[in-house]
């Protein structure tokens, strides 16, 4: 029942969220899920507990699942090239299997 698939997880600043999801739409990802959080890397410690009107510095975790692993990798690479030269963020890729593969 389950089919091999690839999941890509992008962790980025919230200000990039709309640009990244627009790119996902354009490059053919069939869907994505976004979760908000905080984090620490080489720059600011970000935390969404603190009151802040500037939500743009929060961290978002965007993940998308695709059956076509090569395509997923291409999209991931393009996001890395376009956004993560100037801005914070990481991308990682894992293998998975999906149920109801017709949905993807």
């Amino acid at each position, binding site marked *: 029942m389950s089919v091999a698939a690839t999941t890509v997880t992008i962790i980025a*600043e919230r*200000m990039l969220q709309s*640009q990244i999801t627009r790119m996902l739409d354009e490059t053919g990802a069939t869907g994505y899920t976004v979760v908000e959080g905080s984090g620490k890397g080489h*720059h*600011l*410690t970000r935390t*969404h*507990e*603190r*009151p*802040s*009107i*500037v939500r*743009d*510095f929060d961290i978002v975790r965007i993940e998308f699942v695709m059956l076509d692993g090569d395509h997923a990798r291409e999209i991931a690479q393009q996001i890395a090239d*376009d*956004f993560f*030269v*100037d*801005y914070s963020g990481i991308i990682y890729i894992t293998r998975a299997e999906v149920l109801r593969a017709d949905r993807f």
Partner: protein
Amino acid sequence: MDALLSLLSSFANQLQSPTLAFLIGGMLLAACGSKLAIPDAVYRFIIFMLLMKVGLNGGIEIRNADLAQLALPAVFAVVIGCVAVLLGLVTLGKLPNVKREDALATSGLFGAVSASTLAAAMVALDEAEITYEAWAPALYPFMDIPALILAIVLAKLAGKGKSGSKQNQLTAKQIIVDSLRSSALSALLLGMLIGFVVQPVELYEGFYELLFRGFLSILMLIMGMEAWSRLSELRQVAQWFAAYAALAPIVHGLIAFGLGYIAHITVGFSPGGVIILSIIAASNSDISGPPTLRAGIPSANPSAYIAASTSVGTPIAIAVCIPLFIALAEVVFPA
């Protein structure tokens, strides 16, 4: 001598306002490691309420105002915003261990305007029973936007061709649009529009004005907590940022006070208006500024400019500049 004495006593008087007590109380809490936290949603709602109140009030009263008088102070506001940025570049920017981009972003933030500080100033003027032109709060964008644009444009000229990425493309027009779309300016302008068009006096007095001071006290508490808790970030960047953040508000405020005085003499700008202009100049942007600068100067370190502004600039603007410029006005413009 007498003038100085009366300045000092008037200043000391201002220091006892609840506004300030809550600001300092917030710092105290954070310094003691208190776990008290005002929820983020409440913070954002309070900002909305304050700006809507300021906007509605301006809009309701602007009908009787002579808008032609706005011209000179507005021009001065633009000038102050730009001078602040240039001043930051040739002072902070020349110091050792300070990157040019970081200096530009920081002085952009200090050239721009804080709505919270403006609200605190309005309450202080109310308490001191000093009136001002209804349109005075509308000077805000005239200083805010030019400062942000100038900082970003100067950073781009410097960084030309350095980064090939898609993002680094903010044009002046986009910066203006971004600023006007920010939650702070949108609420202020919408409030003005609604106030002007439907004159909702009852709603204004029975709700927005009713809750204004209380919400401001909570906002001050939050800003105090924020100020303290960002001090550790400030320590990670060159000390010059802290020094700049302590002096810039006073210097910008004094420049504005001087220009405001000229407007007072030439076009009859009110003493209260001069104070508003000075506080706007002394304040630094905490809402629309940071994300605009982050997008416009991505190579600048947000820790530097945000910490400098939140931890030092804002407390100085509220705790020192508001009482200072009210006291100064009382000396300069005798009743």
